[in-house]
Structure formats: C-alpha cells, structure tokens
C-alpha cells in the first residue's frame, strides 16, 4: 500500500487529474442519487398509501370536491371494507408562492388508521390530538421547523398571506405535538380534528355556497381501508365493488396507482443515475489512461519484480490494487463533497421546507463501491499488460 501511495505521489499532477475524474463522477452520483432517493422516499409513501387505502372521490365530471358524509355508511357496507374515514385536505399556505418540495397541507386526523397497515405516528415532542378536541394541531417536523413552532405555541392556519384582505380568516390553533422526521411529504402536514378540518374546508368555499350548504354534512373524499395485510389484488376488487354499488363516487384501482408511483420512481432513478454514470465513465477512462502510462513508465520495475519471483498473478493483483486505491481515494473525496453539498443545501433550505436530498446508507455503499469497482475494472487491461511483460525484455528496456 505504501508503494502504491508513493507511486501516486511521485506523479502528483497526473494522479490529481485522474482522481479528479473519479471525484466528479462520484460527486454527481452522490448528489443526483440523493435527489432520486429523496423523490423515491416520497413516492414510497405514495406507494404505501396507494397500496393500503382506497381513495374514494367524487366522479370525474363533478369538479367540486364534495361528497356527502352519509356516503361513508354505504361504502362501509361493501364487502371487504374494514374502515371508512372522511378525508379533508386544505392548503396551509395560500399565498401562491412557488416553492420547491411538497406543499404544506392541513389534513384531518385518521385515528386508529395504523390498525389497517398505515404507519403509526411517532412524536418528537408533545402528544396526539385529544379525541374530538377543537383548536389543536399536530405539526410535521418540516412544518414545525419552517415556521419555528414548538409544543405550546399558537399557530394561525391557514397562514395569513402578505396583503391579505380584511375578511381573510386564519384560525388560531395550539400546537400539541410535533411529529418525528419521516423524510416524506407528511413532514409538511398539519393535522387537525375532523370538525376543524370541516371548518377550514368551509372557509375555502365561496360565501354563497358556504351559506347554502351544511358543510358538516360533507367531506372532500373518503379513505377506505381493508383488513391489515389485504393483497393489492383484493383491494382492486373492493375498489371495483365500491364503483359498482355506491353511486356518486369514483375509485381508482390501488394497483394502478402503485404502478404509476413505481413508474415515476423508475423514471427519476433512471434519469439521475444515467447522468451520474456518464460522468463516472469519463472518470473510468482517465483511470485507464493513467494506468497505461504507469505500466509504460514502470516496465523495468515489473521486470525486476518478476526477476525476484513475482508470479504473473501477483503483478496483476498489484496493479489492480493500485487502480482500486485510485478509485477508493476518488470515491471518498467525491462522496464527501456530495455529502457536504447535499447537507448544506438541505440546511440552507430547511427554513423554507426545502429538503430535497436524501443520502441513504444504500446510496453511500453504491457510491463508494462503484468508485472502487469502476477503477478496478478500468485497471484490468493495463494490469494484464503489466503481468504479461516478458521479464528479460522488461529489465533491459530503456
């Protein structure tokens, strides 16, 4: 190992340029891979939701997103349905500001939903909403950080935009709990009780509609759950039964939603990974070039090693190891730079709920492993060339 490092140091400029090729490639793989991992983790939540709950919405031709709460009773009588929850979703930030990352939403609690396969909530601080309580809110980790809220603070929802009209209504809520970070869109959610969610939904309706409609009799959609562990195929069948037996609603087959999410995930991964691989290939070519030059310069050394008893395989192994070390150094440096940049960007963007990178252990292993593997593969031809040198010719070369 000392010999390898000394040989790299003897040609500082060349070694630096070669390793830089790997650094750039692994930096690209780490950052783009972290982008893909983040999107994939968000999509994974979508897959989990789509693969567990059946979303029941108004039919496509009905543009107003309102369903009678009484429809829930009809849905609950469909064979295979274990639970029906009304689902409300209101924008927390109505300013219209364009933001990267998932939107901040106010949703209603779905108490007990973990019994049907949805992940249980984990609190970083505070507690769950008291049953039926008004004026309480649980914040996702990103939302709490973005708005600087802790348990016990009051929070106006929806957020009052700059220049709001006098009749803009922002209700005061008390933060009773902050959820632990999950890395998925629920970090940007605020959860309130069903009654408060209906109140907030009503605020989104035109005043004329609000006065004509009993908003307490409506929901925006339903989340329908089957027994824990129900297969995707069976969920599809339940969704079809709902479509067939309950009027005024529309469901999408969970398997279709899962397929959409997975297709999107594959596309993201392919785009980001492809770009990074391209950069890596360039790094690999620079390793090939450097190793060929190294073998050419060290022909007599190779002859000497064979003269003192090195087998062909041992010479091959030494040069492959040298290539692998180049890959390891470049990989560590590129990974370190990528990790640093992604951490910095996420930290800088945390105030705006901009968390767009996710460096997972899997990504770290891939980045570092790929660097070593690529460099080693790139070193095969030069190493074979070295190993096959005739010792007599090599010793007497100029």
């Amino acid at each position, binding site marked *: 190992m*000392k*010999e390898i490092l*000394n*040989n790299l140091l*003897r040609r500082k400029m060349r070694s630096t340029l070669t390793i830089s090729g790997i650094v750039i490639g692994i930096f690209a793989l780490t950052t783009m891979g972290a982008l893909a991992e983040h999107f994939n983790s968000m999509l994974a939540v979508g897959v989990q939701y789509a693969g567990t709950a059946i979303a029941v919405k108004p039919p496509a031709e009905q543009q107003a997103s309102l369903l009678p709460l009484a429809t829930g009773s009809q849905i609950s009588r469909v064979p295979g349905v274990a639970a029906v929850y009304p689902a409300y979703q209101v924008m927390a930030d109505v300013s219209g500001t364009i933001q990267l990352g998932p939107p901040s939403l106010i949703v209603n609690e779905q108490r007990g939903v973990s019994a049907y396969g949805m992940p249980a909530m984990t609190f970083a601080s505070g507690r769950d909403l008291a049953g039926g309580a008004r004026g309480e809110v649980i914040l996702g980790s990103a939302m709490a950080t973005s708005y600087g809220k802790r348990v016990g603070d009051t929070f106006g929802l929806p957020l009052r935009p700059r220049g709001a009209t006098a009749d803009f209504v922002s209700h005061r809520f008390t933060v009773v709990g902050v959820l632990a970070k999950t890395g998925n869109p629920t970090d940007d959610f605020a959860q309130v009780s069903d009654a408060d969610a209906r109140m907030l939904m009503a605020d989104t309706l035109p005043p004329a509609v609000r006065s004509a409609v009993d908003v307490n009799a409506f929901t925006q959609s339903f989340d329908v759950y089957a027994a824990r562990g129900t297969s995707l195929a069976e969920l599809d069948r339940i969704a079809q039964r709902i479509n067939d037996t309950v009027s005024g609603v529309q469901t999408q087959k969970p398997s279709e939603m899962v397929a959409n999410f997975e297709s999107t995930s594959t596309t993201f991964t392919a785009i980001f990974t492809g770009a990074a691989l391209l950069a890596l290939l360039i790094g690999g070519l620079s390793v090939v070039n450097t190793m060929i030059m190294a073998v050419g310069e060290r022909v*007599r*050394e190779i*002859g*000497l*090693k*064979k*003269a*003192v*008893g*090195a*087998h*062909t395989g*041992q010479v091959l192994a030494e040069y492959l190891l040298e290539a692998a070390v180049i890959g390891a150094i470049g990989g560590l440096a590129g990974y370190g730079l990528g990790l640093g940049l992604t951490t910095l960007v996420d930290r800088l963007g945390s105030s705006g709920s901009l968390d767009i990178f996710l460096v997972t252990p899997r990504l770290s292993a891939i980045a570092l492993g790929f660097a070593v593997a690529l460099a080693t593969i790139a070193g095969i031809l030069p190493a074979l060339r070295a190993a096959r040198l005739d*010792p*007599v010719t090599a*010793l007497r070369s100029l």
Partner: protein
Amino acid sequence: MADIQLVNLTRTYRQGSHTVTALDGVDLRIPSGEFTSIVGRSGSGKTTLLDVAGLLLRPSGGAVLIDGEDTSRLSDGRRADLRARRIGFVFQEYNLLPALNVVENVMLACRYSGGARGNGRRRALELLDMVGLGERLHHRPDQLSGGQQQRVAIARALVNRPALVLGDEPTGAVDSQTSDELVRLMRTLNREEGVTFVVVTHDLDLAAQTDRVVRLADGRVVADERAGAPAVACA
C-alpha cells in the same frame, strides 16, 4: 549453496527473417560457493547465458540443473518460486524501486518468497549493516550514490539467502573506486555467506578477482580458467 550445471545449452531467437544463435551448446558446471565471472565481447551470449541460468529465459535446447533438478520442465510459476527462494540478481542499473526506501527495496524480494515479514526485516537490516548502509535505512534511491544503490541491490539479492547470485555488469555503472569496493564486498559476501556468485562483466579487473573466468565467443565457451590454474581452451 547450490551446484549449477548448464548442459548443452542452446538459445536461438528470430530476428526478422534470420535465426540468431545466442548460445550454441554451452556446457558449464559451477560448484557451490564459487565466484565465477563470464567475459566476452558484446554479442558473445554472456547476458543470454545469465538470463537462462537465472530462469528468466527458457533455453531452446539443453537444460539448467540446480542441485540436480532439471528446471526446463518447470512451469512459469514454479520457476518464479525458484527465483524467489534460490536466485538473487544484481543488475548494472541497480533497478531499485523509487517509491520504496532502502529497507523496503531490500525486502521486496521477501514479498514473493512467502517468508515471514518479521524475519525478512531482520535479515534486511543485518545485510544493510554488512554492506555499510546501516545509517541510510529510510533513504530513497534518489538520495543515494550509484555505489550505495548497488550495495542496496546486493543486499536485496541476498535477503532470501539464495543459493546463487547472478550479476549482470554489477560494476558497469560506477566509477573505478566504487567498483573496487563493490567487488571486495561481493567477495566478502561470497566467502561469509557461502553464496555462489556468477557475474557477467566487461571489467577485466573484476574478472581477475574472481575464482574462475569463463570466456564466451559466438555463444560458446572458448576458455575456462581458474585462478592459479592454467587456462583451459575449449573447443
């Protein structure tokens, strides 16, 4: 120590459309512990003889016997093992690895002989002391003179306690004073370590200090004289 026997050695190679005979039926026996020089004009086959005796080159015909073992049938790997354990080399251009210091260069030969690292280091330090480089253990080759580098190469050749040391113009790249010092060193090591030395040289002063001078011409042994004995002309 080892008894080296070259039996009817021939070595030919193609040069364009011609066949060149570098060795033409060389018969030579070198008893263990002897210090032999091989002299001759350029093209006489000296270096080829060294390469074949050192198992770096396979003969076209004949055999190289080391302690009676015919090496011509051995695989490349087995020949490499023999070189690692039983043969040391000293080259005109030293051939030290610039990335390693003095001790590491001497221990390079241990890397491929399968010996324990600790033993190799002890032996390397002992030899470096013997060759007068005990104070320069961590110097790099570019920090040493030509004579000092050749001393390192001699130590490297002896680190695995070989039976045979082959020198290819070992004094060819140094001045006369250094050359004398190196020859005295090799003589001392030949006596104290009991290692058989065979050196190829143009340096007649060096040859005169060896136990035996074998002269080659056109790939054949034409003279073989021992120190203090009448010269033997070979047909």
